[in-house]
């Protein structure tokens, strides 16, 4: 989507303001779509995109950190439920199995 907006070519990002749909005789909220794709409501999409990017970035941090630890085997745990005052969702802990001599 951002590629089509920044570098319009064969496919572009089509943005449509409020419009009248003759078949239903209804006013439609603003939509956008890449040429050839079905339109999506901008209002809903921007909220979903924010959530997606946040999930994506958090996932990157978790995966990168998980792969680059050393010295001890660490495990990833989920903070359930996250604290409302600081909703960090994951923690790295030294694998408890090595602490109890089971490893």
């Amino acid at each position, binding site marked *: 989507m951002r590629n089509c907006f920044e570098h319009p070519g064969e496919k572009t990002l089509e*943005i449509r303001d*409020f419009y009248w749909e003759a078949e239903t005789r209804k006013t439609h909220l603003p939509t956008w779509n890449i040429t050839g794709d079905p339109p999506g409501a*901008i209002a809903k999409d921007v909220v979903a995109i*924010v959530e997606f990017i946040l999930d994506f970035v*958090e996932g990157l941090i978790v995966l990168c950190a998980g792969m*680059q630890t050393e010295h001890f085997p660490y495990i990833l745990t989920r903070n359930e439920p996250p604290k409302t005052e*600081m909703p*960090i969702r994951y*923690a790295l802990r030294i694998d408890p199995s090595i602490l109890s001599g089971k490893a």
Partner: protein
Amino acid sequence: MSDRPRDSAMSLELAEGTGPILVMCPAGDALEIYKVDRCFEVLSPDSVDPKQTDPNAPWIVRHVSGFGAGNDIVARTVLQANAFLKEATFKDTVDREKVMEAARGCRNSILECRRIAEEINAEIDRIVRKYRFLNLRGNVITSFPVYEGLHEAAGRFLLSAKQALQHAAGIINAFFGQVFTGPHYHKIRDWLNKTFSGTGFAKFIEVNEPRIK
């Protein structure tokens, strides 16, 4: 031992915001201090006056954001990265400062995305309320709703989204000593499939890469 005022110990009280200080994070030359609903930046005399020209150079505390540790975007980016860096030992190749720098960039860009998303939704709500009853005269609608600045708002949103993804690539660079520029995740996908084939990380990028073009 120095007797310059700038070198003496300092204490500060943060009256703004709610509750106690929850966490402090390094932020380049500064320190970020978080309460649940506020973020403050503290600059030391050495940051304010790196050339050491002023023996009385002050500490500077500024309220940088109305978003604190309780904000999900702040917590799941900067504070998550900060927590990991404190919790575990990492390989020498991991550049901690750059991890935090990239995480802060992601935080700022996603906060901006959310702000614009809220702006777009508020404006659409406002217009819908204003034009709740279309003025139909005969078969003519005399005033049809218009979102002035829709393209511009959408463009700003997409730009901030792109910046967030660029900073996210910086997280990978900082953890793995790579130099991916821009949000070219197809290159990151190819590198992961070559270097870390079959890992959860490679699959994660493989799955998400088409969605972030």
